[in-house]
């Protein structure tokens, strides 16, 4: 049952640790280097065996499954989604230095792909001959299984949950984690998400004709679609009590968040960005901050004609003429689907840690309808509050605000 605590007794939510793996690095440090050197991870497909190998650039993690297995010392044949998730979640927990077993803990993980990378290989053989195909390839297919594999690795046996709301999945996982801590239901929550590149999603997005055959150009007038990416991003959320008792770092506070439905179309955003606007506006309300308090927006910014115009319209409507620094880091990593909210939450925390904002690569010309010029350089500045947006298919719009402790 909820305790319905009065606001004065509700715990704040501290981010005590972060972990990330993506096309630009296998750690927070490598990621920081990539940002500072403007080194994009978008390039030709290397590991995925697909007909589109030479025509569609992607943000692939630069390690094969074998290499990931060896690095992690896990049993063979785990799905790529699980491998990436375990990698990032372990990093986050190690970074936080929290003793999970001392506390009521939970893992909330998000994925859209689950074990599809292995399953689709099974299927191509199985469909030709039902005696073929390795069943080991399908045992880890379900989204919930990815969560369990990560939980087993971390030794978390308390609250487990899996979120799948398309591209906003992992930020929704972080929101749920924050709520459970605020309500005093849990003390420590590892929250985030993981998604691997698969033929399923590559072909699917290609059929929607929203992939760019070139490296993507978010928020640019000549943008022509997104590049798919893969990776995982996790944060360790702790309550005030855990933060004090274990003398943990407070890299950031989760100060506000909101989720809305655009209620317009299954996959396209409304032209005036009502859903995105509402999510950002409500996130501000819950945080008690004003638009002037936001120093950096990590945009959803996929690079599609539809999203960027819709999101840009919403941002302009909310922030007016005084836009904070804003950028889409998907020009570095590609669109990591279900993992994007988690990965970009980590990038937002990094922004607070290093008092820097990250650039929007390959930007040349503002969208004529809006005239928004994103951040072009890595810049050190006073960053106290960062807003991160994630908008998913199904009209699911989320916005989270992370603040300097």
């Amino acid at each position, binding site marked *: 049952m909820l305790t319905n605590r009065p606001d004065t007794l509700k715990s704040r939510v501290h981010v005590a640790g972060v972990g990330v793996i993506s096309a630009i690095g296998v750690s927070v440090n490598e990621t920081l280097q990539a940002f500072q050197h403007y080194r994009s991870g978008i390039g030709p497909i290397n590991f995925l065996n697909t007909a589109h190998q030479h025509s569609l650039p992607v943000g692939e993690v630069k390690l094969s499954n074998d290499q990931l297995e060896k690095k992690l010392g896990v049993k063979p044949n785990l799905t790529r989604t699980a491998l990436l998730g375990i990698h990032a979640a372990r990093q986050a927990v190690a970074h936080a230095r929290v003793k999970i077993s001392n506390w009521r803990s939970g893992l909330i993980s998000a994925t859209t792909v689950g074990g599809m990378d292995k399953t689709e290989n099974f299927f191509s053989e199985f469909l030709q001959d039902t005696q073929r195909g390795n069943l080991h390839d399908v045992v880890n297919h379900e989204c919930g299984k990815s969560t369990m594999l990560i939980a087993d690795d971390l030794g978390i046996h308390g609250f487990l949950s899996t979120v799948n709301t398309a591209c906003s999945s992992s930020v929704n996982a972080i929101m749920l984690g924050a709520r459970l801590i605020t309500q005093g239901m849990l003390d420590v929550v590892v929250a985030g998400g993981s998604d691997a590149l698969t033929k399923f999603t590559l072909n699917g997005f290609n*059929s*929607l*004709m929203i992939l760019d055959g070139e490296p993507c150009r978010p928020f640019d007038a000549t943008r022509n679609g997104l590049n798919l990416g893969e990776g995982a991003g996790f944060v360790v959320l702790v309550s005030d009590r855990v933060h004090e008792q274990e003398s943990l770092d407070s890299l950031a506070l989760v100060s506000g968040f909101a989720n809305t439905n655009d209620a317009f*179309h299954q*996959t396209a955003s409304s032209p005036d960005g009502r859903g995105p606007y509402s999510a950002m506006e409500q996130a501000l309300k819950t945080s008690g901050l004003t638009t002037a308090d936001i120093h950096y927006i990590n945009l959803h910014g996929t690079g599609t004609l539809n999203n960027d115009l819709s999101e840009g319209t919403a941002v302009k409507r909310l922030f007016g003429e005084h836009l904070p620094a804003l950028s889409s880091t998907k020009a570095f990593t590609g669109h990591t689907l279900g993992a994007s909210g988690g990965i970009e939450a980590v990038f937002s925390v990094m922004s607070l840690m290093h008092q820097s904002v990250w650039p929007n690569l390959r930007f040349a010309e503002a969208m004529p309808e809006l005239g928004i010029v994103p951040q072009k350089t890595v810049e050190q500045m006073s960053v106290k509050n960062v807003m991160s947006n994630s908008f998913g298919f199904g009209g699911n719009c989320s916005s989270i605000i992370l603040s300097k402790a």
Partner: protein
Amino acid sequence: MEQLMADLKKQIIEALNLKHLKPEDIGDDQPLFVEGLGLDSIDALELIVLLQQKYKVKLANPQDGPTIFKSVKTMAEFIRANQPA
């Protein structure tokens, strides 16, 4: 041309799951999108796939969709003009 349009109507109904319609319900010049049949952007993509699979005609730019898919007639004309020999 008549046969092509008749075939197209059947194929459109099947490809787009328009179970509530029969080929005779679709007029040759009837607008397919917005009003008329009320098709949307995803339907347009399915029609692009249909053109490619059944008629080997490629539509590289989805922005050209609205003109080509205006009606069954414009679709048929486009196919006639672009079908490989």
